[in-house]
């Protein structure tokens, strides 16, 4: 019963963070309206450069860009990390875990935000002529993967929040990290269409597992040059690494927090 109440609380906190992220209605609406435009522009760009010579059809590129952009637009946010960092002291004086709140907040905001973008993407893709079957299948697969992706990103967010307590300068790393994920993850274009040796190298990064492989799976129903089990093992490994790093960083952040007076 107590566990259920705890889960319920963190669920509500996640929803609170989602509401906070979209609390500015004007700004949120403009983001949601710009998103379909972004799909159109990036797809046109990719098709222009690639001239449909890659591994995907024109329709698939639309869906791929929609999925990759959706994942990227809801990736790590500096504002959330800063708020988490600012709440660290108070978190130690409250009966709820700071780590739990940071994780739940990021998870709720990411998952909820992604669901909103899915709602925008589906009609937009149908309007540009992508087949209903492809859209429904791709987004169904995506929705199934969203929780596990949310967990992974929430762990990354809590690591970065703790890291900022340990080394203030790491706040400048959030932007480069997101850009690295943007480039290595195949957000602008699928890694499958990259030339060698870049493709083989990029395919090994967590960015590929989080963006490209997810996009590819949603389109084709299988991972690129990777079995479902292998992808799950890789994700499990990343989760373990991020989980352990989280605990270690939190422990040291709490310790270091003592040295500058809270």
């Amino acid at each position, binding site marked *: 019963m107590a566990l259920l109440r705890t889960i319920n609380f963190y669920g509500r906190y996640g929803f609170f963070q989602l509401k906070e992220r979209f*609390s500015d209605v004007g700004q949120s609406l403009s983001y949601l309206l710009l998103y379909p435009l972004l799909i159109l522009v990036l797809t046109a760009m990719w098709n222009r450069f690639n001239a449909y010579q890659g591994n995907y059809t024109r329709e698939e590129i639309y869906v791929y860009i929609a999925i990759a952009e959706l994942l990227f637009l809801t990736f790590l946010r500096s504002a959330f990390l800063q708020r988490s960092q600012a709440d660290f002291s108070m978190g130690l004086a409250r009966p709820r875990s700071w780590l739990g709140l940071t994780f739940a907040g990021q998870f709720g905001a990411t998952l909820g935000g992604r669901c909103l973008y899915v709602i925008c993407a589906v009609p937009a893709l149908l309007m540009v002529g992508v087949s209903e079957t492809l859209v429904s299948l791709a987004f169904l697969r995506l929705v199934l993967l969203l929780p596990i992706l949310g967990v992974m990103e929430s762990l990354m967010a809590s690591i970065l929040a703790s890291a900022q307590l340990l080394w203030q300068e790491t706040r400048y790393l959030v932007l480069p990290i997101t850009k690295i994920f943007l480039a290595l993850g195949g957000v602008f274009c699928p890694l499958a269409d990259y030339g060698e040796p870049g493709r083989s190298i990029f395919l090994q990064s967590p960015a590929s597992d989080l963006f490209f492989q997810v996009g590819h799976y949603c389109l084709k129903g299988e991972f690129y040059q990777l079995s479902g089990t292998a992808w799950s093992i890789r994700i499990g490994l990343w989760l373990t690494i991020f989980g352990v790093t989280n605990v270690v960083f939190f422990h040291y952040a709490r310790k270091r927090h003592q040295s500058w007076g809270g």
Partner: protein
Amino acid sequence: MLADCVAIEALQLTKTFPKSQTPSVDSLTFSIAAGETVAFLGPNGAGKSTTIKMLCGILTPSHGTARILGFKAGSQEANQRLGLVFGTRSQLYQHMTVEQCLDLSAEIYFLSGPAKLHRIREMVEAFALEPYVKRRVRSLSLGERMRCEIAAALLHKPQVLLADEPTIGLDIVAKNSLRQIIRNWQKYEKTTFMLTSHDLSDVEALCERCILIDHGTKVFDGPLTALKGPLQHLRRIRVTTNDAQKPVLTEGYRFRLTRAENPFSHIYEVLTHEQPMSESLFALSQHYGESLQDISISEVTLEEVLGARYGAS
């Protein structure tokens, strides 16, 4: 049982930060009974905030122990019974409405269901928050926000409230209103209240007892009146005259200090246990005669007392 009547207890509390030769808080020992209102004072760098942070579990003491209602400071049991207000740190979310923030604060402290809604309604009424509940926090003035902060801190009915500079940056009207609300609330709920503030009018308005620390050690612990010591009998009499040639009264009476602020305003200080006020006023009215325009009497302020103490140390 001791924990039944002691709300806050510090035993040999010491905090030495790494790379620092001297402790910020050094063997501090005090206890605060349930329902007491205590001011925790000291100059900048005296160790007030460090002590407060050790009491609420934000910092771990290097030595000694801190207990809240018998529970180790920082433990979940202690945190659940503790309310915190930091004037320089907001617990509210800027982009959310006050109502949403209060709801979240309540849930953080395990309040839910009808009990939560009832308590929020109670706080909205008590703190006169009705006009703001639907407004976003970012649109509130500092005074309005601080009222919401305190309401959020008291939502879970904490038995102990620690407030660190709750009126910082507020104008006099907002300060008075906030003090009035806290005073009423404290009387109503019998919350143990520990306040640190550089605004000593806060202290005089809200607290009965004062703990004074300097360089991390306790230098005074007792009622506010005792802090003033012999100065509690000191009264300052300002006389306004319309005769610029009128000299200051210097002889025949036991005025502690006499000086001319300007040719039309003279100041006298008198210790009322040495010379009754009636005698002083009689002497002054005799001396000034028809040139006397006005007389005002004031007590020595806590600022002056502490200023003198800090200056001496």
